[in-house]
């Protein structure tokens, strides 16, 4: 476990700091992540190095978001509330044309994801990177599952726009 700490402490710290933007909180969250890993050593031992890195980053991410939500620093995530305007909007998965995302090159997708706001990137990261269900994401952010669905749809729509922009930029260069 000590070796694991030395190998991944930088990853845990950077992940926590990216979300909390506080040095002391990031250090506390690294400690909390380590405690969580010890409590789930049976899972940790089964993972190869690549999956282990993703698992550790995922645990740190979840704990960091929980921390921020609990400390009521909602200003950083002010849009992640059960906003009736969002809930009542016509955000519907079926209305978002998936063609652009599906056909985009990985490099274009990476550029587009990194161009999103941090909040939207984080949402998509939890959904697709960590494969969390809407219910799990709702629990992490302490909002309703319906809100998660709407925010995800909005995030995917913005992702489409970024892909479009990137495709035009790339086409303009050729």
């Amino acid at each position: 476990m000590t070796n694991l700490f030395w190998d991944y402490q930088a990853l845990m710290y950077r992940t926590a700091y990216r979300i909390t933007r506080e040095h002391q909180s990031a250090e506390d969250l690294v400690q909390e992540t380590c405690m969580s890993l010890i409590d789930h050593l049976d899972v940790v031992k089964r993972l190869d190095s690549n999956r282990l890195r993703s698992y550790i980053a995922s645990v740190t991410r979840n704990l960091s978001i929980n921390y921020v939500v609990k400390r009521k620093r909602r200003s950083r995530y002010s849009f992640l509330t059960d906003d009736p305007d969002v809930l009542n909007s016509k955000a519907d998965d079926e209305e978002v044309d998936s063609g652009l995302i599906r056909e985009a090159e990985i490099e274009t997708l990476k550029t587009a994801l990194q161009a999103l706001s941090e909040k939207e990137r984080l949402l998509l990261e939890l959904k697709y990177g960590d494969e969390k269900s809407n219910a799990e994401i709702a629990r992490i952010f302490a909002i309703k599952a319906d809100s998660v669905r709407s925010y995800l749809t909005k995030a995917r729509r913005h992702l489409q726009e970024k892909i479009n922009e990137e495709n035009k930029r790339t086409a303009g260069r050729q």
Partner: protein
Amino acid sequence: MKKTSARQDANETSLTEDLYRELEALKIRIAFAEIHEAEWNSASPNQQLSDEGKRRVLKAIDKRLRRRKYVHFAKTTLPKAGRIAAAVLSVFFIGLTAAVASVRSVRVSVLNFIMGIEEAYTELGVGGEMRDVPSEWQGECYPTYIPEGFTLDYVDPIFAEAQYANSSGQRIIFKEYELSEYTNFDTEDSSVSTIAIQGAEALISEKDGRVSIIWATDDHYLLLRCDTPRETAIQIAESVTNVK
């Protein structure tokens, strides 16, 4: 026929849509994996814990791991063979802490008495060296006798552990624990008995060629694990001295 065909078409379209959705999710997942990989490889050395932060976390890790070991010890090893031995140690420890006189002076007197009447015992062993305490060692006690052929392999200053190894891969491990903490002392399928180490009651366990000895001083539990004969392990334990 038409209805069946239309239903088949609808099913295939639905399957295709499901596959496209999976493809989209997979592509986003791959993109995130590559973004993380690039971030991981490009991070600067400043993006990590402070030295104090590292120390704090390592201490917390040790505490949590020891608690896990104690729980494991209590659930598995203790019910099997350790109850009596643990009771002996506990009674001994309670007696030790209840002593009115200086415990250290009592222990030294007893040690001298034992060494006096068991002189022949100190001549046992295959010969060894009086070793210096490693400079990184932060514990209170340390063995001054290590058998010939064993060299210092590892010292952990934070968790007070030292390891020696010889060319055959055999090891000698010495660890110091706080009295409030427990350690996993494996007595399952092993021969367990009590002996005296420096006047203190100790548990000695032998299993698969490894000898483990655990005993208490005024302030600590000391654990010795040796891939050596029993007599050699006892000799090493007897050489443990207060170095602070």
